[in-house]
């Protein structure tokens, strides 16, 4: 198989294991490219991509933009604060206006779950979901798995725990789907107030004790508390959260193995993860960031080749 099974990347839920392997193999090539002195290939000179960010983002937007530019695509950026969305324009109209300027692909971040799916049904362009509410963030999950594969050789059979605010996290959901497709075992860990009641229906286990969770796992993916999405108080104080769910060097040192520590960023040092953990050799947080560019190049390249 040399092409993706889907015309859009709306979520890991909508792709299969072969798609993931194809993306990884393509990313291997692009990772080599971005480590060359000239970090650029001419593959997408005829493709124009719009990055539509209806929600604040720094790293994901930069990562996509770099990925696009290193493929030589033409790139336009758009964020909601500067747009006519505030003037009452609908999402479909906004996007169709941009597409009229001959844009081939849309990378979209949006606060509402399903916004990418909705858009894909209503506009004629290839859509890449760069995060839609608490639904999915597929490229993040792909780069996370890719980073595990790079560090541990394989994802299959590995024990991965996702720690923190699972309830409001698109990263958690996409990671669960991606890890399971590749044969990993997944647990989620956090206060019960931040874990969806029916999460076990996805085939994951729930562990509320962080120490037990890290004793079980090969990889701990630490998520931040999505303060901007908390409509009510789900725990009494950050201090109390840290006491239970903050990962410390002392906890890692108590283990008789070296687990891999991941974080999708931005890190809240001293909350979900202490500085000495974030900066330790067990943390692969910056590798994730580097791999993000390669993964996004692969996704965009593979989707663009379907347009062609």
């Amino acid at each position: 198989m040399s092409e993706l099974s889907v015309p859009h990347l709306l979520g890991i839920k909508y792709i299969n294991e072969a798609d993931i392997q194809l993306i990884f193999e393509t990313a291997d090539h692009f990772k080599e490219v971005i480590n060359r002195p000239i970090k650029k290939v001419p593959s997408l000179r005829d493709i124009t991509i719009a990055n539509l960010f209806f929600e604040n983002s720094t790293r994901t937007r930069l990562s996509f933009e770099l990925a696009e530019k290193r493929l030589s695509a033409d790139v336009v950026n758009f964020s909601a604060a500067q747009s006519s969305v505030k003037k009452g324009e609908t999402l479909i109209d906004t996007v169709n206006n941009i597409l009229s300027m001959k844009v081939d692909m849309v990378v979209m971040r949006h606060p509402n779950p399903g916004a990418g799916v909705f858009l894909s049904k209503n506009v004629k362009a290839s859509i890449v979901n760069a995060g839609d509410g608490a639904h999915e963030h597929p490229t993040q999950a792909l780069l996370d798995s890719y980073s595990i594969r790079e560090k541990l050789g394989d994802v299959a059979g590995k024990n991965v725990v996702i720690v923190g605010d699972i309830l409001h996290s698109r990263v958690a959901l996409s990671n669960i789907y991606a890890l399971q497709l590749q044969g990993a075992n997944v647990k989620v860990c956090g206060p019960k107030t931040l874990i969806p009641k029916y999460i076990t229906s996805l085939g994951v286990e729930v562990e509320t004790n962080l120490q037990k969770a890290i004793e079980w796992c090969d990889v701990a993916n630490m998520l931040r508390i999505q303060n901007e999405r908390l409509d009510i108080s789900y725990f009494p104080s950050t201090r109390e959260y840290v006491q239970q769910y903050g990962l410390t060097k002392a906890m890692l040192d108590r283990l008789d193995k070296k687990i891999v520590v991941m974080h999708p960023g931005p890190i809240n040092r001293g909350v979900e993860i202490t500085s000495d953990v974030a900066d330790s050799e067990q943390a692969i947080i910056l590798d994730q960031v580097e791999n993000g560019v390669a993964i996004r190049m692969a996704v965009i390249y593979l989707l663009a080749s379907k347009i062609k």
Partner: protein
Amino acid sequence: MKTLLKSATIIDSSGTYNNQTKDILIVDGIITKIEDTITEEGATVVELPNLHVSNGWFDSSVSFGEPGYEECETLENGTYTAAKSGFTSILLNPKTKPVTDNKSAISYVISKTQDTGVNVHPIGALTMKSESVDLAELYDMASGGAVAFGDFKTPLENPNLLKIALLYAQNFDALIMSFPNEKLIAGKGVMNEHIASTRLGLKGIPALAESLHVARDLYILEYTGGKLHIPTISTTASVELIKAAKEKGLDVTCSVAIHNLFFTDDALEEFDTRFKVMPPLRTQSDVDTLKAAVAEGIIDYVTTDHTPIDIENKKLEFDLAEYGTIGLESAFGALNKLFGAQKAVELLTKGKDRFNVDNSHIKVSEKAQLTLFNPIKEYTFSKEHILSSSKNSAFLNSKLLGEVYGIYNNSKLIIE
């Protein structure tokens, strides 16, 4: 004016002609003859394929929009849609702007619909502007023709207000409606909290939000006495609570929306906002319980909960779209498919007494209040079947059974 219905199979389980095929002669709105064969000079003859007739159908929860939301539906086209869908009597929700919370607003609805062939009975808002703060003038609205009082989908947050309403309404034997949804538990939820919501990352509304509210209302009813109707329940727990309350002897009735019997929350897999309804579509287990409760009579009535929403407020990102589906046009096709024609008709003719709505029977000398239909036609429900101004139907692309020709009511034959 004479109308002759030829070879009409009568579906009326409580009458003498059930399942018999007869000719029916109607003169000036009154049934004058029911015989095997009638010939009558000068009569408008109605001969339709596999014609069946029943008592006119009734729906306890319909919204149109006029005044205020005419872009969703007008009274004129809404009542025509109801007539063509087989409904001779409907209760109209106060989903208007301004809210139907006073006698003149009630009078407006009644006078604007009195020549339509459909008996439109307004529900008055229970509280001023449906804001859940102060009671509206219930007695005044009742004397103007309001048949029940409720704030449509706005839950009564203040339990004391329900207590007062139930006590006050007893002065004039009025029926209070309380839509169950505990807002603080529902939070920012937009669909049922279960497996589907977990998969979709959409905020869930726990079944608890409904049952907690139902339990509260039933406790209050036990204290106050009076008559309570709980519209559109959707969960197993609510069914159990209402069953227990009825066994205690409380004067409570409830309804379920047809779409809550027909679809589960799995329908939301593609984030299709046509399925964004309130109460939300629940699980298969809930649907099974609801259907059994309808069959057993624990759930008293089924309703279309017909809610037209213009495309500007429906074709949006899921979180932003409004709640509701239209349902009049698909009501019989869906119920007939779920329960068969005899039971479907029984369900569609139930509830008139509870809401003090004019009722009559298929016999000589009675007022002709009839629905004309063909229960055996199978079809895929599509846009061409929609008569409403708004096209937000959850039933689009569903296979339904049975088509409706229209009604005869108030001396009007509406089949075209």
